[in-house]
């Protein structure tokens, strides 16, 4: 009996070990998926503390922005297990919540004492909730962001340029505070020769394939009064999307594109606008706050040479929302590990370090710190922007809604087809059809 027992025991132990080992290995490892950009490097640094505290090894899957949505949404749709944690775009939250791709975090937050009131309200609303504005949380705000502007402060401070600007416009040269001023300033610089080189007014987003031109054009549309609906939640878009203000906003964006962008910037997004600015071609440029720490440190155009400003207002003050929340992927094999990371990331000390490393924390302890405004040259603008952000549709059908906007805006702004009114009327028509298909109209 004893002789039989030994091999049986051995076989059972071997079987037990062989089944336990993979899960042990998984428990000690987490894969976090995000876009490949400057803040991702900061997160790698930050996460070393998590590994030191828990022993969990962090793996990162960073996808370049132009392919980020395609790659990650394919992963979610196919039920893949690549990501345990995902810092996904704010627009994905509706679809990911309704399709069961993200874990609902309410119970976990309650259990661990994580309060959403500890984070900036606009960020929670944008990055965590679905349906919008309801206390149903699918993510923890991870990276606050908005579209903003930067300019060549050294050029703006040259006495001869200031005098010329004053003579031409009758006002002092300074960072624009309205869209009219932005256009005027861009036109002033466009074609001017500075330091022996021809420069251009502004580098803006015109990219067609993913989301570029929509993120750029809405930066003009929102301040001019563009709204998605007349009554929130009713999908009544006629008169809001194509309002008089919205038409003026789209015309202003096209005017800026036509008058003042460097040659060849017909399909430009984050990388191209940064290139235009860093190579000394553009007096002003738009981009996400996420890139500002890198720009401020840039050897050629950073330091004293660069200034930042929040999106100029017009009829109202508004900025296009960027940024993301961090979610637990429902398909993960390491749910406990993923939730542990969220719990760790939500701590005020970790959030403070996140900001110091170049990530945009939106924890109130960070934002309300008296030293915050002076911690970076763009920190005060970030606070202003985060209080006036507006986001694109976050509906489950956001991808189709976005494609329609990309086509309509690019056709009008870059390809010069039709009028702004026709573009926005067309957008109402496209979006109405989409919401009818969705059963929401």
């Amino acid at each position, binding site marked *: 009996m004893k002789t039989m027992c030994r091999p049986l025991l051995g076989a059972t132990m071997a079987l037990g070990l062989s089944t336990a080992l993979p899960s042990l290995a998984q428990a000690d490892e987490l894969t976090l998926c995000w876009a490949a950009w400057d803040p991702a490097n900061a997160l790698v640094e930050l996460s070393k503390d998590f590994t030191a505290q828990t022993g969990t090894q962090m793996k990162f899957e960073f996808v370049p922005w132009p392919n980020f949505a395609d790659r990650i949404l394919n992963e979610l*749709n196919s039920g893949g297990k690549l990501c345990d944690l995902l810092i996904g775009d704010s627009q994905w939250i509706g679809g990911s919540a309704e399709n069961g791709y993200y874990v609902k975090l309410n119970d976990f937050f309650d259990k661990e004492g994580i309060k959403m009131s500890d984070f900036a309200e606009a960020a929670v609303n944008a990055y965590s909730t679905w349906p919008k504005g309801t206390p149903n949380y699918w993510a923890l705000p991870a990276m606050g962001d908005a579209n903003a502007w930067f300019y060549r402060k050294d050029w703006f401070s040259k006495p001869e340029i200031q005098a010329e600007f004053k003579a031409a416009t009758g006002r002092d040269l300074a960072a624009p505070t309205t869209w009219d001023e932005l256009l005027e300033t861009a036109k002033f610089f466009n074609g001017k020769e500075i330091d022996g080189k021809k420069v251009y007014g502004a580098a803006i987003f015109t990219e067609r394939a993913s989301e570029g031109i929509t993120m750029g054009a809405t930066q003009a549309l929102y301040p001019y009064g563009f709204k998605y609906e007349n009554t929130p939640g009713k999908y009544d878009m006629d008169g809001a999307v194509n309002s008089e203000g919205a038409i003026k906003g789209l015309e202003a964006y096209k005017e800026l594109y036509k008058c003042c962008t460097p040659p060849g910037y017909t399909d430009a997004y984050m990388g191209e606008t940064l290139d235009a600015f860093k190579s000394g071609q553009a007096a002003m440029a738009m981009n996400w706050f996420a890139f500002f720490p890198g720009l401020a440190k840039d050897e050629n155009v950073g330091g004293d040479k660069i200034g930042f400003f929040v999106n100029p207002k017009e009829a109202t003050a508004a900025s296009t929302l960027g940024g993301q929340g961090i979610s637990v992927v429902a398909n993960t094999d390491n749910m406990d590990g993923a939730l542990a990371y969220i719990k760790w990331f939500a701590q005020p000390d970790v959030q403070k370090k996140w900001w110091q490393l170049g990530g945009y924390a939106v924890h109130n302890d960070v934002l309300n710190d008296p030293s915050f405004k002076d911690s970076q040259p763009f920190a005060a603008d970030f606070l202003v922007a985060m209080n006036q952000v507006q986001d694109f549709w976050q509906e489950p059908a956001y*991808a189709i809604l976005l494609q329609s906007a990309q086509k309509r805006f690019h056709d009008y702004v870059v390809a010069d087809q039709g009028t702004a009114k026709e573009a926005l009327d067309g957008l109402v028509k496209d979006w109405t059809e989409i919401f009818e298909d969705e059963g929401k109209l």
Partner: protein
Amino acid sequence: MINSDTTILEKEPERAAASTPVSLARRIGGLSDRAIAWLFITPTIALLLAINIFPLIWAIRLSFTNYRANRPNAVLENVGLQNYQRVLTDSDIWIAMQTTAHFVFWTILLQTLIGFSLAYLIDRKFRGHAFWTTVILIPMMLSPAVVGNFWRFLYQPQIGLFNYIVSYITGVPPSSFEMLGSVSLAPWSIIIVDTWMWTPYVMLICLAGLRSIPDYIYEAAEVDRASAWRQFWSITIPMALPFIMLAVLFRGIENFKMFDMVMLLTGGGPGSTTEVASITLKREAFESWRTGRASAFAIILFVAVFGLANIYVKALNRVKQR
């Protein structure tokens, strides 16, 4: 003598069979030769069914539903011919089809004219013709991804070599025109690149056609005092025509599905100026996630290409029979 040779040749397979030690069939559990043949080709057929036929049938099935790949849990509903109706009445899709037809027409025309001309020159066998043939073939050996990125730089209005060459010839400032950003120039920028890349391919096929014409036909024409022009139109063109038509068929099918080059160069822009059918299909399937509608569009494209190719092959056969 001839008869005896024929007899020997006819008996050769039998002899070979008799010399085979033991029939393979007997060795594999009494299976017939036909069964063994099936055994060998079944994996290939199964693979073809799995990767070609099954997806096609599945796409046909999906084209009649409201399926969306990004909503796997949604209820699948049959929508009848609604997807086909929407595709066929969508003005954007018709514009994309026109854009595709425009590309196919101009690329084939240019590639055939230039490719045949190059083949005609190479066929003269001048000194160093082998070297120049190799040089001409280089573009088609490159990856489309490399070519696309390479030409993006060449077309760059501020630093691009293409703009500088045009500027040198015409005197127009290089940054005053944008090949990829201008509505009127962007389609031509793609046609130029596709022609640059694939003309060598057409040239190769035409060269094979020219080399297949026996010399004695030209010698007979010389004896009849036919002029070079007459020889070209009465011998060269008719005898090379099946090869030219074959090249046109291959390039036509390829360019109808043109995707990589357009995506790399313009992404379908500016606006939707260069959005060919394959890009519209990709956007419908993988950006808008209307999988059912995209399947209907794919089936329509497949039927259109298949139908046109069949008509063309029949015409090609008629030319060959003449």
